[in-house]
C-alpha cells in the first residue's frame, strides 16, 4: 500500500485497483493532498508584510546562469528578516520534441529526442530506445545491455564533474565566498581540511581558490575529466553527444576486446579522482555546517524522491512492461519512491501508476479524456498520466494566477517529489535489492563502496543517508554518485569481459534491416524508464499504424522546476528557495547577490531542456 492520496488499493498479489464508490476518483477537487497553507493565505501574508516592511524586494532572474539559460526565477525576499517569502521558477522556452516526434517512424524518436538536452547527450537516446523496444517486443542480448550500461556510466562520468566543478562549484570559490561572506573566508584560511591526504588541500581557503572559475585547479581538472568520460562513451557509441548507435533492441556498435581494453584504461584513471572528489565535497559540507548551522537550511525540503532506476542487469532485463517490476528491482540503482525519508515502493508499476502531470499553470491546454484507464497490466492510471497526456501548446501572457511556465507540474500520488542523482543513492541504500557484486553494498542506511587500488591504495568509502536534506547534501551526494556510477561501470566491464569470453558478442536483438518488420501496426504503448545525470527520466509513447501517435518526455528538470499544481503546492525548486535563509552579508543591500538562493537552485540540476543552435541576439532558442 504505497498511495496515501490516490484511491488505489492492492490485492495480495500486488495488483492495483481503484477503490470503489468514488464517482470521479481522479478529480482534483475530490482527491487532494494535505496542503498546510493555501496560496491565497500565502499571498495575503506577503501583501501584509509588504505594507509594513520596506525591505521586501521582488527579484527576477532571467536566465539563472550556470543552469542552462532556460530557467528563470522570480522571488520575493525580505532583506530585513533575511528570508525568501516566495519563489516561482519558470521554463521560458517551449521545446516541443513531443510534437516533432508525432507521426514519425518510432526509430526517428531516438535521434530527435536526444536533442532534449545539450548536456546529457545520450540519456534521451537510450530512454527513447527503451520505450520503442518495449512497444516492438525486442529484448536486447546481454552484451547490448552491458554496452548501454557502460556508455551511461561514462555519461555520468561526464555529467557529475561538470556539474560539481563548472556549474555548482563556483558558488563556493574564493571570489564568491570573499565577496558574499568575508567572515567565512577568514575562517577558511585557518580551517584545516580533514581530507587533506585525499585531495591535497591543506586549508579550506586553498580548496576554495581551486574552485575558482577558469583559473582554479579543480575547475580545470573537472574539464579534463569530462574529456576522459567522453572518450569512454565514444569508444562504445561512436559519437557524443547524440550517439547514432542506440537502437531498439540494443546497440549497433562493434564491441571488441580492444574496445573494452581502451575503455578500461580510461576507467582506471578515474578512481583516484573520484576519491578526491568525495573528500572535497565532504570537507566543503562540514566546513559550512561548522561555520553556521543555518547552512543546513539552504535548499532544504522534505526527503521526497522519485527515481526510475538505472543500469540494467543484463540477465534480467527483457524489455517487457509485464516484467518491469522484476527487472527494475534488479537494476544497479533501484527504482522507487521515498516520502518523508521512508521508502514506499520499489516497483516501476507503482512509480508509473502514481505519476500525473498537471498543466494548470503551464502554457498548455488541458487535454480531455484519455485513451487508457489502466496500464498494460491492468493497474489503474489517471487521466493526467503521461500515457493519456496530449501536448497542446498555448502560449500567452505570464500570470502567476493563471499560466507562467512551459514546464508542467509532475506529481506522484499528488505529492511533490524531487528528482536527482542522489535519489538513486537514497533508494538503492534503503532498498537493499542490488545484484550481488564486489564493489557496492547497500546497508539500508548507507552505501559502502569499495574502491580499487589506483595511485592511492584500495579503500572503502561510505555514503550515509543524511539526517537533513539541503544544497550541501545534494552536492555531496552527487560526488558519491560519481564514484557509485564508476563502480557500476567497473562491474559492467567485468560482465562484458565475461560475455566476450563466452562468445556472446551479439549486441542487438535483430539486424537493422529487420527492424521495420517489427514495428507494430496496432495501437501499442511503450515506456522507457531510465535516468539522466539529474535522475528520473521517462519517455512514454503510443504507436499506431506504425508511427508515433503520442510521445511524452518527463525530465528531472520538469519535476524539479515544476510550477504550482492544482492544489497550489510549490515545486521542489520553489520550496527549496522558500526554506533558504539569507546568510550572505546584506549590510549593504546594493551588494545583495542571492548567493544562498542560487546555491539552493544550482545544487539540484541543470535544465534538461537546452535549446538548439540559434544565432546569438535572436533569442537563445529556436522552437521548431
Amino acid at each position, binding site marked *: 500500500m504505497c498511495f496515501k492520496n490516490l484511491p488505489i488499493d492492492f490485492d495480495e498479489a500486488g495488483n492495483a485497483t481503484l477503490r470503489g464508490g468514488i464517482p470521479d476518483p481522479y478529480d482534483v477537487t475530490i482527491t487532494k493532498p494535505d496542503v498546510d497553507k493555501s496560496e491565497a493565505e500565502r499571498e495575503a501574508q506577503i501583501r501584509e508584510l509588504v505594507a509594513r516592511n520596506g525591505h521586501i524586494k521582488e527579484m527576477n532572474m532571467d536566465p539563472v546562469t*550556470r543552469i542552462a539559460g532556460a530557467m528563470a526565477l522570480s522571488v520575493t525576499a525580505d532583506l530585513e528578516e533575511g528570508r525568501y517569502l516566495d519563489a516561482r521558477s519558470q521554463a521560458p522556452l517551449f521545446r516541443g520534441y513531443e510534437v516533432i516526434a508525432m507521426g514519425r517512424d518510432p526509430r526517428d524518436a531516438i535521434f530527435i529526442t536526444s536533442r532534449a538536452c545539450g*548536456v546529457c547527450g545520450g540519456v534521451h537516446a537510450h530512454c527513447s530506445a527503451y520505450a520503442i523496444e518495449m512497444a516492438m517486443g525486442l529484448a536486447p542480448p546481454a552484451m547490448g545491455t552491458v554496452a548501454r550500461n557502460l556508455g551511461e556510466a561514462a555519461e555520468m562520468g561526464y555529467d557529475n564533474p561538470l556539474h560539481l566543478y563548472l556549474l555548482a562549484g563556483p558558488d563556493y570559490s574564493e571570489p564568491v565566498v570573499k565577496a558574499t561572506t568575508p567572515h567565512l573566508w577568514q575562517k577558511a584560511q585557518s580551517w584545516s581540511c580533514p581530507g587533506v591526504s585525499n585531495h*591535497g588541500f591543506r586549508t579550506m581557503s586553498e580548496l576554495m581558490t*581551486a574552485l575558482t572559475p*577558469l583559473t582554479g585547479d579543480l575547475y580545470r581538472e573537472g574539464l579534463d575529466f569530462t*574529456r*576522459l568520460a567522453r572518450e569512454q562513451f565514444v569508444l562504445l557509441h561512436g559519437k557524443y553527444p547524440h550517439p547514432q548507435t542506440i537502437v531498439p533492441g540494443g546497440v549497433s556498435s562493434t564491441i571488441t576486446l580492444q574496445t573494452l581494453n581502451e575503455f578500461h584504461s580510461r576507467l582506471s*584513471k578515474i578512481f583516484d579522482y573520484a576519491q578526491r572528489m568525495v573528500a572535497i565535497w565532504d570537507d566543503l559540507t562540514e566546513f559550512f555546517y561548522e561555520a553556521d548551522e543555518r547552512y543546513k537550511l539552504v535548499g532544504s525540503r522534505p526527503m521526497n524522491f522519485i527515481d526510475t532506476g538505472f543500469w540494467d542487469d543484463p540477465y534480467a532485463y527483457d524489455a517487457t512492461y509485464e516484467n518491469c517490476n522484476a527487472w527494475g528491482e534488479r537494476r544497479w540503482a533501484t527504482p522507487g519512491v521515498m516520502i518523508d525519508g521512508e521508502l514506499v515502493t520499489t516497483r516501476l508499476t507503482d512509480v508509473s501508476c502514481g505519476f500525473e502531470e498537471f498543466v494548470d499553470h503551464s502554457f498548455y491546454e488541458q487535454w480531455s479524456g484519455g485513451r487508457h484507464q489502466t496500464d498494460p497490466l491492468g493497474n489503474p492510471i489517471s487521466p493526467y498520466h503521461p500515457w493519456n497526456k496530449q501536448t497542446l501548446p498555448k502560449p500567452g501572457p505570464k500570470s502567476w494566477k493563471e499560466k507562467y511556465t512551459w514546464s508542467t507540474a509532475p506529481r506522484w500520488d499528488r505529492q511533490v517529489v524531487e528528482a536527482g542523482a542522489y535519489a538513486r543513492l537514497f533508494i538503492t541504500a534503503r532498498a537493499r535489492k542490488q545484484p550481488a557484486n564486489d564493489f557496492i553494498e547497500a546497508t539500508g542506511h548507507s552505501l559502502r563502496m569499495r574502491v580499487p587500488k589506483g595511485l592511492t591504495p584500495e579503500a572503502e568509502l561510505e555514503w550515509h543517508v543524511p539526517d537533513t536534506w539541503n544544497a550541501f547534501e545534494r552536492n555531496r551526494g552527487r560526488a558519491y554518485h560519481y564514484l557509485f556510477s564508476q563502480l557500476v561501470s567497473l562491474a559492467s566491464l567485468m560482465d562484458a569481459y565475461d560475455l566476450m569470453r563466452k562468445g556472446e558478442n551479439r549486441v542487438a536483438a535483430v539486424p537493422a534491416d529487420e527492424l521495420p518488420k517489427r514495428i507494430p501496426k496496432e495501437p501499442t504503448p511503450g515506456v522507457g524508464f531510465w535516468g539522466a545525470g539529474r535522475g528520473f527520466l521517462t519517455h512514454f509513447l503510443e504507436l499506431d499504424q506504425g508511427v508515433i501517435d503520442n510521445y511524452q518526455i518527463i525530465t528531472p528538470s520538469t519535476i524539479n522546476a515544476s510550477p504550482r499544481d492544482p492544489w497550489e503546492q510549490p515545486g521542489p525548486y520553489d520550496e527549496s528557495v522558500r526554506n533558504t535563509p539569507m546568510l550572505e552579508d546584506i549590510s549593504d543591500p546594493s551588494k545583495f547577490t542571492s548567493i544562498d538562493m542560487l546555491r539552493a537552485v544550482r545544487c539540484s540540476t541543470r535544465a534538461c531542456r537546452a535549446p538548439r*543552435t540559434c544565432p546569438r*541576439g535572436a533569442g537563445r532558442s529556436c522552437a521548431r
Partner: protein
Amino acid sequence: MPAGPITEAPRSGVDVLVGGVGQLYQGDLDLGRHAIEALAGEDLGRGVRVEDLHYGAVAVVQRLQELRPAALILVGAAQRGRAPGSVHRRSIEGVDLPPSELQRAVGEAVTGYVTVDLLIEVAFALEALPPAP
C-alpha cells in the same frame, strides 16, 4: 596537490585547421557542416585540415589543445542584423570580455549551446586559440 591537465599534446603538424560550427536541423541551417562537407573534397594544400567542430565548445577546445594548429578558421552562420546570406569575414586576435563573461561562456558551452561566437569565447578563456600572427 591535484594533478595538472591530463593531456599536453605536442604540436600535430596541422598548420591551418578549418572548422565548421553548426547543428543539424537548426536555425543556422547547419551552414558550418555543409561548408566542411564541401571543403573536405577540395585540395587545400599540405598542413590544412578540415573538421566538423559542432560538438560543443569545451570538447572543441580540447581538440584544439590536441592539434595545436598555427591558425584556425571557423565557418558558421550567425544573426548579425545584416541581410540574410551576407558573408562576413572576421579576424579574431583576442576577445574583449571580462572574466565573469568568459565564465558565463564556459557555463553556456557545457550546458549545450553551440555557436561560433561561444566557441571563440571559450577557446580564448581556456587559452586554446592559436597565437595571434
